[in-house]
């Protein structure tokens, strides 16, 4: 199994969810994060003090899928999350040793199906 961690724009979350849904991927976890990268930030002013803000709101998606699904899932996310503008985000894939469904105790691929 692999753990696909996608960092995307908050406004693309709906699209990405739909795309995964179409692929049959049901289980996902979502975290609100902040990200810095090439995308430029903005300046805030509070009573004349300037604050340079370069951590921007992003959404991190975690999906664990079987190895063979990796490519399709990554492509689905890519397609749905892309706007072509700087700041679209990244996808990182790591290897998962074991997955357990807490409710049943199932392990391995069946835990995430």
């Amino acid at each position: 199994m692999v753990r696909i961690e996608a960092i995307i724009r908050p406004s693309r979350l709906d699209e990405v969810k739909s795309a995964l849904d179409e692929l049959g991927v049901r289980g996902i976890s979502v975290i609100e994060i902040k990200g810095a990268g090439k995308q430029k930030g903005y300046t805030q002013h509070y009573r004349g003090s300037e604050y340079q803000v370069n951590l921007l709101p992003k959404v991190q998606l975690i999906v664990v899928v079987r190895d063979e699904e990796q490519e399709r899932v990554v492509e689905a996310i890519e397609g749905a999350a892309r706007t072509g503008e700087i700041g679209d985000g990244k996808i990182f894939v790591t290897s998962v040793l074991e997955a357990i469904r807490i409710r049943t105790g199932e392990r391995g691929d069946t835990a995430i199906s």
Partner: protein
Amino acid sequence: MKLRLWRPALTALALISLSFTAFAQAPSTAPPGPATAPAASAPAAPALSTAPVEAAAAPAAAPAAPTIDKGDTAWMIVASALVMLMTPGLAFFYGGLARSKNILSTLMMSFVALGIISIQWALWGYSVAFAADKGGFIGDPMQYAFLKDVGETPYGTQTIPHTIFMMFQMTFAIITPALISGAVVERMKFSAYCLFILLWATFVYDPLAHMVWGGGYIGATLKALDFAGGTVVHISSGVSALVLAFMLGKRKGHGSEELRPHNLPMVLTGVALLWFGWFGFNAGSELAADGVAGQAFINTHIATAAAAMSWIMIEWFKYKKPSALGFGSGAVAGLVAITPACGFVDVKGALIMGLLVSPICFAAIQMKNKLNKYDDALDVFGIHGCGGMFGAIATGLFATDKVNSAITGALGAKNGLFYGGGPHQVIIQIEAVLITIVLAVVGTLIIGKLVGLVTGGLRTSTDDEENGLDVTEHGEVGYSSDTSTVPAFAGVD
């Protein structure tokens, strides 16, 4: 389509400008200021005509020296403060309904009206609305310019310092344009908005206030009834909001993203302050601490309670979930509906009006969702426009001189249809509504177009809209985390 709309609008603008010029030249016909005898020609604001009658019962024949009543003054100072508080109340009502990335931008649209309109009102707005009538349309813009002659001596036959009356009316002038903001939040440029409300207050609100309360056509000639601002405040803002929503277009993500309220407790904070302040708005419009004020007070409360209940009842039947937002929306709809009627109807009338306004507004919003033609973001037209129209017309159904003898007395109007007055008053009320609508539509189209030209479009860029107007227009975020450079999530969270 847009081009076609501009043509009649521009014609109307020309006409309006023309008439302004004409009126400005016409000699003052009935200066209501304290300097001249205000007797019969006094501006026919409901309150103006009823309160003094009771207060100055003894020297009734000699209106020469209106005296200040300290009880009335005490009440009207407080009433003015209460209405002032409604604008922040509105800010929170709207702010909670916006997304958190636009929270400050939404709040500012109300707050800035406290800045802009207060000054406009002092410089010329009050004079346009309440100085000596010019052709039934505006007051003499010079007479009270810069609040000249607005001092302790009461206005007309009132019993409170002129300053207080001016201030009380100012708070109405402030909240009305702020009401419009609900339709345009999350995408209108702040600069365009500021300019828009300045012009709108001057060319739409002030003349309308004059026509209804300042001795102009609608109040003094047509003799329509509007106790606390159904036409002046709610219809005018609701209709203008609709027009502006059309001109601006929908928000990015409208229809695809889910644009939900970010903070409903904040919405209820707003509802609480609005409800509280509205007692000043409605009972204060009597301009005296008397029986009519008492009646206006209880009508306001009963209609609001009834409308809040009736809205959640609809939800209860339809979705099995009576919601907090529904309660708040209903309460505001009730407040809107009872506004023109509160000093003219009895408790039964208020209760019925409250119960009926919610289904009407609810249906209007449902219709908006179905039609999906415009994005009146926070339902200004649905609640203030539709609720206001219902209220104005229903005033013609339920008004009764049993509650306020001024109706058939000083105001020269008739009782409502259900109270023996026949259809007469209803028709007049409808006429008043129509005039208001025309003025609001034409005025907003022209001003909106003009402002767009000046500010290079009414809308922010799509990028700015996506990032939220707080950061892009105001350089701040509403909620910050302690983690130094980590600004709060775009969400509340």
